[in-house]
């Protein structure tokens, strides 16, 4: 189980401290898929990066299987079994798709593994493994390779930040299947997403609003609630206060 306890994070703004996350408590159970959603700037990506250790919270703890991992570096968390797919994939001059999948797997993958992994994101290994991860790949291709790097690691916890961004509808179908398969393997998956189709396939939906957990529950129930409330001009959910409910 992955647990976030009283996570607080603020950054320096023009008018003093700006709170990004304010006392977030969440549990992510084994075999469970959780979608984090919310309007722009609600703290979703920050929360995802705190799980991976890319951002260190000002307060609070991250606990994996009973161990406090808040002080562990990104590499140490990766070795503890956390995978992360960025919203904006990184380009590498000179490194090929094959090089990065090998690094992600921690050893040379077999041809079959490469084929399986890339086909999960709608790409053919033969066409891609020797291609450089630089400007000659489209944004959608880079995004799918980014997701493949997380999938091939077969980690205990996989975090995907807006995996649907830049993906065409045909590839999206395949991705939905890959995310569904993660649940069947007993692993924890956390997806930051705005895509209703992804939300409907999840076990749990978390709505962030103003850095707080505004709602947690089954997707149908939470989606129904989201539609029932109005959104203020500043983008905050009306009545979207943290209901104190812990996941």
């Amino acid at each position: 189980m992955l647990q976030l306890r009283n996570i607080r994070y603020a950054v320096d703004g023009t008018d003093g401290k700006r709170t990004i996350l304010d006392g977030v408590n969440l549990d992510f159970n084994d075999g469970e898929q959780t979608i984090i959603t919310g309007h722009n700037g609600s703290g979703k990506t920050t929360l995802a990066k705190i799980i991976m250790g890319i951002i260190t919270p000002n307060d609070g703890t991250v606990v994996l299987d009973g161990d406090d991992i808040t002080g562990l570096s990104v590499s140490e968390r990766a070795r503890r079994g956390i995978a992360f797919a960025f919203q904006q994939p990184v380009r590498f001059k000179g490194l090929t798709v094959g090089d990065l999948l090998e690094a992600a797997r921690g050893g040379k993958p077999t041809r079959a593994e490469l084929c399986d992994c890339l086909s999960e994101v709608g790409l053919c290994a033969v066409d891609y493994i020797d291609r450089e991860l630089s400007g000659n790949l489209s944004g959608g291709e880079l995004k799918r390779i980014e997701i493949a790097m997380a999938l091939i690691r077969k980690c205990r916890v996989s975090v995907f930040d807006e995996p649907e961004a830049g993906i065409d509808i045909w590839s999206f179908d395949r991705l939905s299947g890959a995310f569904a398969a993660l649940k069947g393997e007993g692993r924890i998956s956390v997806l930051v997403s705005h895509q209703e189709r992804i939300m409907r396939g999840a076990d749990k939906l978390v709505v962030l609003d103003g850095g707080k957990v505004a709602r947690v529950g089954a997707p149908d129930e939470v989606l129904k609630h989201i539609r029932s409330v109005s959104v203020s001009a500043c983008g905050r959910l009306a009545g979207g206060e943290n209901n104190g409910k812990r996941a």
Partner: protein
Amino acid sequence: MANALNELEKRLLAQVADLEALPQSGAFNLRENGKGVARGNSAGVEITPKTDKSGIDISVKAGVKGESVHIPVIMTESGLTDLVYNDFYIGEDAEVVIVAGCGIDNCGSQKSQHDGIHAFHLAKGSRVKYIEKHIGTGVGTGGRVLNPVTEIFMDDDSAFDMETVQLGGVTTSVRKTTATLGKGAKLNISERVLTSENQTATTYFEVDLVGKNSSVEVVSRSVARDGSVQEFVSEVRGRTACFGRVECDGIMMDNAVIRSSPRVSAENVDAELMHEAAIGKIAGEQLVKLETLGLSKQDAEAMIIKGFLK
């Protein structure tokens, strides 16, 4: 005589020419410590020593396909300065791979220097793949100096693909490459340079696009560590309807310095020329991405540099 190579010679040969021993087939010329020590011709390639100065003439017959020529240089003596002139004559429609390069192992206190002046004359429709690797090794305090000069004269519709790599350990290098391209000729140059400690590496590229529809593409990637200094200077002149592109990327680490001066001169309204230069440290997002895969920061840096210089 180099027919029985010792371990050091074998290692240098492997590093600069990917050879484990002297070739049993194909044309080759091995130069060691300022002297030609082994040579072989093939059906399509003839190598003859120059009579007026140090060096060789390499003639590739017209129409020859799939042949290779290896002309590595190794230096294992400290205090030696070697100047050599090699001229390549590539016949019409010939296709050949030429592997050159120099490895200097200097375990002494005196400077070891190799200056290789290579001139390529490509006849119509000929194609050359030219691979040149340079490396310096040895624990001595003496300098390991390499100054390669490459002059390329390309007739109509010929193609020259050049891969030049400085693998490290070279104290000082000044690399000069000039080219003149005829109609429809294509020149591709890929340069990779790694420097560290207090080494210096300077590169000059000068390309004249004279023939209509000729093209050149230069991609230079360099990594400078410690207190090393690198300088990249290029000029592409488009005198007719032509295409030219120069890309120079450098990664700096520690207290290193990289200077880049790419210059393009269009002298015809249909000349399409461009240059790009980017110098900086390793991007933080690249390091973090590799750390999310479980690599330490040091391993992530090593992987990025290895890929960048590949």
